C-alpha cells in the first residue's frame, strides 16, 4: 500500500504558505501530522497531486495564552497540548479528553488542527472543541474566524475550503465555576468512539447555566445537542438532573448503526454516557448528588 506520486512543497513561513495556496489549483492537501491523511494516501483513498508540508513553519507551532483565550497553532502536536501547563490549568477538559485519543505515538505527530480538519465523525476532539466554543481561524483564500458550531459540516467535511488551511484554534479559557468532562465507549483502548460525550457547564450556587453538550461517533459529524443544553439551563446540578437530561438527549438523537454498534446501542450509550459525563461535571464542582 504505497501512495501515488505527488509534488511536494515545503513552505517555511506563513507568508510562503499563503503564496503557495494562492497559486494552487485547489487540489493540494496540507500535510501536518499526517496521522489521518497518510493512511488514506497509502490506501489510495486520497491521492493529492500536491502535498503542502507545513511542518517547517515553526511560527505555526505554539500554545499560548492571549488574555482569556488559549491560542493553539496549526502545528501544535496533541502531546504538547495535553502536557501543556497552560492547558491543564486553564482548560483542563482538553487534557482530560486526550486520554481517549489514539495512542502516544500518534499524538507525537498528530495535530489538533489536522485532526479537526480531517473531521472523522468518531474523532473525540471536535466534540470537545464544540463544547469549548472554540473559534477556528481559517486562513488562505478567505481569512476568517469560524465558530465551532459552523466548522464541522459532515463526514470528513469542514468549513475549510480549497486554497485554505486552518491556521489556529482559539479556545476561551474555562472561567471559575465552569467545568467540563469527556467520556466515551470504544471497542479498544485508543479506538475511535462508538459514542463519545463532551459537556461543559457553569455551575453557580448549585445551578446549571450556559451548558454545552456535544457528541462524537453517533452521526455524520460531531454536533451539539442544543435541546439538552437549553433544558439544563437553571436546573440544579444533581444526579437526578443528569439522568433526566440524559433521557432527553437519548430521545432527541438519531444515531447511526454500523458493524461496530447498532443504532439502538448508540442511543442507549447516549443516555448512559450523558448522565455519567454530566455527573462528573457536577461532581468536579463539589456539589452533592440529590
Amino acid at each position: 500500500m504505497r501512495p501515488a506520486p505527488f509534488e511536494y512543497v515545503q513552505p517555511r513561513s506563513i507568508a510562503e504558505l499563503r503564496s503557495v495556496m494562492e497559486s494552487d489549483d485547489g487540489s493540494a492537501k496540507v500535510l501536518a501530522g499526517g496521522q489521518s491523511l497518510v493512511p488514506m494516501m497509502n490506501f489510495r483513498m486520497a491521492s493529492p497531486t500536491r502535498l503542502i508540508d507545513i511542518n517547517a513553519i515553526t511560527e505555526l507551532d505554539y500554545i499560548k495564552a492571549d488574555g482569556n483565550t488559549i491560542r493553539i497553532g496549526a502545528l501544535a502536536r496533541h502531546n504538547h497540548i495535553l502536557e501543556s501547563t497552560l492547558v491543564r490549568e486553564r482548560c483542563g477538559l482538553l487534557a482530560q479528553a486526550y486520554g481517549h485519543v489514539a495512542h502516544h505515538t500518534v499524538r507525537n505527530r498528530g495535530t489538533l488542527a489536522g485532526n479537526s480538519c480531517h473531521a472523522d465523525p468518531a474523532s473525540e476532539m471536535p466534540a470537545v472543541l464544540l463544547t469549548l466554543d472554540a473559534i477556528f481561524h481559517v486562513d488562505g483564500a478567505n481569512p476568517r474566524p469560524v465558530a465551532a458550531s459552523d466548522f464541522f459540516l459532515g463526514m470528513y467535511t469542514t468549513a475549510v475550503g480549497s486554497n485554505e488551511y486552518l491556521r489556529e484554534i482559539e479556545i476561551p479559557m474555562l472561567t471559575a465555576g465552569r467545568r467540563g468532562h469527556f467520556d466515551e465507549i470504544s471497542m479498544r483502548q485508543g479506538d475511535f468512539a462508538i459514542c463519545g460525550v463532551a459537556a461543559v457547564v457553569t455551575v453557580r450556587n448549585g445551578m446549571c447555566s450556559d451548558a454545552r453538550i456535544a457528541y462524537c461517533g453517533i452521526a455524520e459529524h460531531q454536533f451539539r445537542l442544543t435541546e439538552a443544553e437549553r433544558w439544563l439551563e437553571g436546573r440544579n446540578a444533581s444526579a437526578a438532573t443528569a439522568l433526566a437530561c440524559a433521557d432527553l438527549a437519548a430521545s432527541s438523537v438519531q444515531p447511526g448503526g454500523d458493524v461496530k454498534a447498532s443504532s439502538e446501542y448508540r442511543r442507549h450509550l447516549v443516555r448512559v454516557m450523558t448522565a455519567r459525563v454530566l455527573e462528573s461535571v457536577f461532581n468536579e464542582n463539589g456539589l452533592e448528588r440529590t
Partner: protein
Amino acid sequence: MTDTGARRWVGKSILRKEDPKLLAGKAKFVDDIQLPRMCHAATVSSIYAHAKILAVRCDAAKALPGVIAVVTGAEAAELSGPLPSRANPTVTQHCLAIDKVRYVGEPVVAVVAETRAIAEDAAALVEVDYEELPVVADMDAALEARGDAVLHPERGDTNVYTVVHRKWGEVDAAFANSAHIVKRMFRWPRVSAQPIETVGAVVEYEPATQHFFFYSNMSQQMMASGGLAAALKVRPSQLSFVPMYVGGSFGGKVGVYHVAILAAVLARICCRPVKFMEDRLEHLLNGNQHGSDRRYLAELAIDANGIFTGLRCDVVDDYGAYFHLALGAHGNAAAQITGPYRMTAVDYKVTAVATNKTQQGPYRGFGGEVANFVLERLVDAAARQLKADPFELRKRNFLRPDAFPYTTPTGNLYDSGDYEGVLDEAMRMAKIDDWKARKAKQRGNSKRLGIGVATVCERSVMNVTEFWFFEDKPLNPVSSSPESVSIRIDVQGVPIVTIYAPCWGNSPETLAAQLTAEHLCVDPSTIVVNYAGTDGGMLSKGPAGSRFTVMLAGAIEGACQALLAKVKAVAAHRWGCKEEDVAIDERGAFMTAGDGHVMTFAQIAEASYLYRLDFPKGDRFTTGLAASYTYDHPCATLPDPKTGDLGIFYPIVGHACHLVLAEVDTELATVRIVDYVAVHDVGQVVNPMTMDGQIRGGIAQGIGTVLLEKYEFDESGQALTGSLADYLIPTACEVPDIRVSHFTTPSPLTSLGIKGGGEGGRLASCPAITSAIDDALEDEGIFITELPVTPSRLFDLLRAPASDRATQESPAAPERPTAVEHH
C-alpha cells in the same frame, strides 16, 4: 539422562537462542531479502464478489516507466496449473483469476515493476471489464443458490462442496433413552490468525538451470514441493526453499501457496528475482486463510444420572470461494469431539458450502477450538438445565485416570490424562471460593461478576489423514508427517543441530538445543542451531497442529542415539573395552568400570575426523560424527472405511482447564476480565517459559475471538472489515495478566513424554470466557451462542425478551441436503 528420569535441561526455562538477533533487528524475514536486480509485484484485485471477467486491458499499465511486466490470468496459466488442493473432486483455483472472480480481492492481474510503488501505479491503470454475477454472501444463500450464483459450475449446479454424515456408537439409542436433551444453535465467527507479518515470497528463477529459489514464510515447503512443483509445471527437484524467520503464523501460513506461486511465475516471466509481499489489505481479503465459519445445531443427550451419553452436531461451514484443505478442520475436530468426557456416541454431519469470500485456511485450533466451544457450551447449558454445579457435572463425566490409553468413539486415541487433577489444581489456584464470594457480593449490581470454566482436551501432533478420511473414495490418502533433524559434533566437539522447519516464534532453536543438550549432556549454550531448506534433503512437515516440539524431540532422540553409539564405539575402541561399558555425562564419554578413562567430545571428534586408520574398517568407524534422523508420527493408523473408524490420528492429547472471572457492566454492556487462571497438562514441558508464552498468546487470541474479531461482509460481498481499524485484534489493554500453571501426565508415546501445547491457549479460552459472561448474567437468563460478544451485541441480548435469551434455537433453520452429495 532419560534413564533415571531426572532431567538436566528439559524442564528448564533457559533463555532463548533466537532472541539476540531478533532483538537486534538482524533476523531475516522475507521482506528483508534484497537480491540483485530484484523487482516488485503488486496485483489488481477484483472489486466484485462474483463476476465474469470479460476483458482485461493492460496497455496503459505496460507503458508506465519502470514497469517490467503485466501478466493476466491466461498468461500466468501458461506457466502454472491450479494451486494445490486436497478437495475431492478438486476445486480449481489459479494464482490469477482467468474467467471469473469469486470474491472481492481475488487477484486478476499481476504487475511487476522496479518498485512496489510503481507496480501499484501501474495496477491502477489496468482496466478490467466485469459482468456481475449473483453474489452468494452467506451460507444460507449458498445452500439455495443455483445457476449463475454457483461458484464452480463444473462441479454441478450447487454451492455445496460436500456433505458428510457419520455416526459412531449407539447414538440414536443414546438420544432415545436420554433423560435430558440439551439442544442449541451456535454461530462461530469468521476470524483469522492475523499475524503482524503478512505472507510474502521472493523467488528467483535461474533459466540456465531451470531452477527456482524460494525465500518465503509460507510453511511446509518440503511436503509442499510436490504440489507446488505441479502448480508450476516443473519437477520438485527444480525447487529450492530457503527457510526464513516468520513473523507469526498460528497456522495462517500453512498451506498458503498463492503468494509463492505467483512470485515464481512472475520471476520466470521477468527473468529477474521477484518480491511479492501481501500488504495488509491483501492479507485480509485474499489471504486464503480465514478460520472456520460455522453454524451448529448441536445436541447433548444426558441420562438420569447426569451422564453425557451422546452428541449430535449438524454443522454448516462457510468455506468461501475455494476448498483447498477440504474437510481437514472437521477431521481435526473429530480427534476430540467428545472432549474429556466418557460418552461413546457421536452423530456428526457437516455441509461445506461455497460463498464469495476468500477461502478458509488453518488458524490455531483448526476446527478443534470450535468443537471445544460447542461442547463446553452444551455442558454449561446442561448444568443450568439440570441445576447442577458446572464443576461437579464435569467431574462426574470426566474420563478417569485409569481409562487411558482411551479410544474415542471416532477411533482416535487419548494417550494419558488426569482431568480431575487439572480442574482441582485450577480451582485451587483461582481460590474459587474467593471468586464465588466476590461474585455474590456484586450480585444485582450494575457491574456483575461471573465465573467461567472450560475443561478441554488439546489434541496434539497432527497427522494428515484428517484431510481425507471423510472421503468415500480418497483421491490422495497421504499418511506421512515426518520431522527430521541433523546433528553433528564438529572437530572441536561442538554439537551443531540443523532443523528443517522455519521459526514461527515457537522457539525451535531453543528447544532443539535443550533437547540435544539433554541427550548429549552438554550445556545448551554450547550448541549451535541452524536451519536448512529443501536443499538439505531431509523431510520436514514443520510446525502445525501442535506437533513441532514432540516431533523435533523424537528426531533429536533418534539422531542423538545414533551419534552417541558412534561416540561410544570410538571410545570403546580407544580403551579396548566393550561399548556397553561406556557412558556419557557432562565430561563426555567415560568408562563405567574402574580405570577412570574419560574422553571429551572434542577428543572423540578429533579422533573420528582425522585419524581414520587408527580404527578398524567398516561402517562403524566411518570418518566423522554426524547423524540425521527422520522421525515419523509415533502412533498413527489408517482409517477403516468399513467401520467408519477414523483411525488414530492425533493421539498425543493434553488437557487444559481455564477459569475466568469476568465483570460485565450491564449498563454499558461491556466485559472486563478480572482474573484468569490457566492450568495446562502438556506432558513433560521442555521450556516452561516458552510454553507459558504459547499459552498466553493463545488466550489473547481467544479474547480477540470472543470479544473483538470478525470479518464482516455486506450482501454484495464487499468487505466491511477492510483494515486493522475494523478487524480488531487485542491490544495490551484488552489482555489482562494471566496466571498459568502446569500439570503433567507424560505421554507414553513420545520422546521424554512431551505433548504438544501450542494451540491449547486458544482451544480453551473461547468457551471459558464466554462461560464467564453468561455466568455474570445468569439472573438475566443470558446464554451466549454466538461470537463475538461485542458490547452492541451483548446489549441486544440484554434487551431481548427473556423467552428468547436462553434457548436461542434457530429461527427457521433452512433446509439442508440430507443425502451425501458427491459429484
